[in-house]
């Protein structure tokens, strides 16, 4: 006896996602994930002024817009042959850190906690859809109260970012050459003060809250592992001071940690709704044509692969690859890693502030090269983000973006390998088939951002709806 369960919308993530699983003898035996939003940024970018890529690609995602400003700026700097000075790099990394904090606070409290904690009694958080709330009343009350308090601290993280970047979402201050902000004592003190307050909440409330959840939901350590292959493009990795250093580009395959080689990144389209003479595409290859009737395909998200393998990216991958965590790989480990990483990033940012000098921005009148190529590979909140662009006649020609969520939420490939989240769902024991909470808990442990993953678009005429 097998049963199919479909969840759509998977709420408390960014964007629109459908998860379909097949459950047999109480366990998940197959899983498909489908992104449900398409906009087509890569096609929009062709012909635009290259410098506009920063503010333009930010708008792929309202949650991780700073990530895209980092990726696009790094790609442009390679293409323009511009190297920012160390002070500019530190300010820019500090700004990127603000987004890590804001995203992790928000995802942990607003998006993850309602899976485990009965929310404060205000709509739309309060829910009686299921009864697997195990916390004693007083503890539940404490965490539900922190759910509300956390809004303040994630807001403060954005306040720091706006102090240096002008506004957020879609900040302005990150640009070719580093930043545009003229660092002064007022800005410096303000972000230092805000960071200290956030640090207090993270170290004294958030850490305890997540370990409490882990204590009452111990079975979440036993599922959601997936392949266990991890990857990071590196971030906060240009500093010699150990307290500023986080993780350099690395991969772990079959338990062995190795250097990351950017030449080995490809996208497989076997089970995605695209057709091409190539089964496997490299960044800056011509976009494949869409084919919605392609046999057996089931997703608009392409399948990024490293050495033909699906990889997990994100906070747990980074902590593991940098030697900061080794308890295990599971739904709960991933959820805890996000909180531990928040603490780690705050420590790095605190150290960056000790190095940042009060100096004006180091901007220039940039001349767009006639022809050039560039890539910007960096680990961002959700994992490894890559921007690749080519410039022709001073305009953008090709632009390829491979997002962290595409790595985690990819479909199967021509080798038959499932995507990372699909594999993480396999073999999970479902306690109550009418309320398969384990699915949402595992999916959310990856903090998927479907707005990012499905930015690529193709042409198709009709759509055949799968009836299950």
């Amino acid at each position, binding site marked *: 006896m097998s049963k199919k369960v479909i*969840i759509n919308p998977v709420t408390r993530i960014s964007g629109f996602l459908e998860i379909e699983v097949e459950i047999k003898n109480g366990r998940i035996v197959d899983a498909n994930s489908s992104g449900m939003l398409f*906009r087509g940024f890569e096609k929009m970018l062709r012909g635009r002024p290259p410098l506009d890529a920063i503010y333009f690609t930010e*708008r792929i995602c309202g949650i991780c817009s700073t990530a895209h400003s980092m990726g696009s700026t790094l790609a442009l700097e390679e293409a323009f042959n511009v190297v920012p000075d160390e002070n500019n790099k530190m300010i820019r990394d500090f700004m990127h850190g603000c987004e890590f904090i804001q995203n992790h606070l928000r995802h942990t409290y607003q998006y993850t906690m309602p899976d485990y904690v009965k929310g404060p009694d205000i709509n739309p958080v309060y829910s009686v859809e299921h009864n697997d709330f195990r916390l004693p009343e007083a503890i539940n009350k404490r965490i539900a109260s922190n759910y509300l308090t956390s809004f303040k601290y994630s807001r403060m993280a954005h306040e720091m970012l706006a102090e240096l970047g002008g506004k957020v979402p879609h900040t302005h201050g990150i640009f070719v050459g580093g930043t545009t902000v*003229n660092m002064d004592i007022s800005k410096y003190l303000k972000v230092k003060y805000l960071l200290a307050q956030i640090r207090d909440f993270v170290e004294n409330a958030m850490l305890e809250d997540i370990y409490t959840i882990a204590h009452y939901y111990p079975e979440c350590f036993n599922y959601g592992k997936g392949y266990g292959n991890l990857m990071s493009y590196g971030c906060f990795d240009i500093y010699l001071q150990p307290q500023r250093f986080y993780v350099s580009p690395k991969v772990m395959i079959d338990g062995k940690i190795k250097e990351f080689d950017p030449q080995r990144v490809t996208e497989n389209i076997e089970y995605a709704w695209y057709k091409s003479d190539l089964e496997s595409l490299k960044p800056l290859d011509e976009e494949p044509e869409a084919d919605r009737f392609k046999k057996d395909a089931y997703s608009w998200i392409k399948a990024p692969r490293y050495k033909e393998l699906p990889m997990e990216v994100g906070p747990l991958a980074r902590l593991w690859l940098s030697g900061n965590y080794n308890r295990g790989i599971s739904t709960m480990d991933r959820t805890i890693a996000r909180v531990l990483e928040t603490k780690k990033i705050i420590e790095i940012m605190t150290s960056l502030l000790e190095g940042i000098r009060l100096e004006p921005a180091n*901007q220039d*009148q940039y001349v767009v090269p006639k022809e050039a190529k560039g890539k910007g590979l960096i680990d961002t909140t959700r994992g490894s983000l890559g921007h690749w662009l080519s410039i022709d006649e001073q305009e953008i020609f090709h632009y390829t973006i491979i997002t962290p969520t595409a790595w985690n939420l990819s479909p199967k490939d021509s080798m038959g390998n499932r995507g990372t989240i699909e594999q993480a769902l396999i073999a999970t024991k479902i306690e109550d088939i009418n309320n398969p909470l384990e699915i949402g808990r595992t999916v959310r442990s990856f903090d998927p951002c479907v707005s990012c993953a499905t930015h690529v678009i193709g042409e198709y005429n009709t759509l055949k709806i799968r009836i299950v």
Partner: protein
Amino acid sequence: MVNLALETRNNKEKIPLIWLETCGCSGNIISLMDADDPDIVYFLREMVDLTYNNSLMAAEGEAAYEKFLNTLDKEFILVIEGAISIKDEGLYNVIARYKDRLITGMEAALKAGEKAKYVISMGTCASYGGISAAAPNPSQCISVNEHLNKKTILLPGCPGHPDWVIGTIGHLIAFGIPELDEEGRPIIFYGITIHDNCTRRSYFDERVFASKLGEKECMFRLGCRGPITKADCPIIRWNDTDNWPIGVNTPCIGCTQRGFPDGMEPFVRY
């Protein structure tokens, strides 16, 4: 229990709100979470009964979509963020699956838009198509007004400022529809251009211009769209700071304006 009863009664008295995300980036709901004085907690506790928003709601799957359906029979406010993708009958933006049928953003917007007491188009994508409709507009995005074929309250901005939407909803609750301009924007927020109130206006008047980002003078010659962009950013600033894009020595890119982004590029002109 008394508290719970009070809360429940409050929820009944407050006007229900559906915050529907369609073809966009979810940046406006994130911007709402950045609100301060009042903040989102006050907004949810005291001002509205938010029955449906996919980013925040605890429920998922069909149970989540049922909360959307159950709101339609009441008197409610509808906020739509995101443009409406109409390509292939809306299947580029599916927001739910209900009883084995895919529900598109196009269908949900129409269903709720016909019944809502007030409809707010939040952000530039909902107001004008925005970046979702940027050329060559691969998903055939249109504005909410075009889709519903009626005039909604427009709160453009990429993203919209939280004060604009909380202020507008506060006005709807206490005083009815605020005074709107010919496009449907509340005059209190969009009455004058960025340029009119710009902190660098004196440089412009003296014809002193910045030659690159990072400088303190007027950025008109770098492509600043302040002169043609209506919004009160110079007054209210962003994210609880005294800062805004001009404050970090970058030009206004006209993100609240019809025609953004295609008509506003290049964002930075050298």
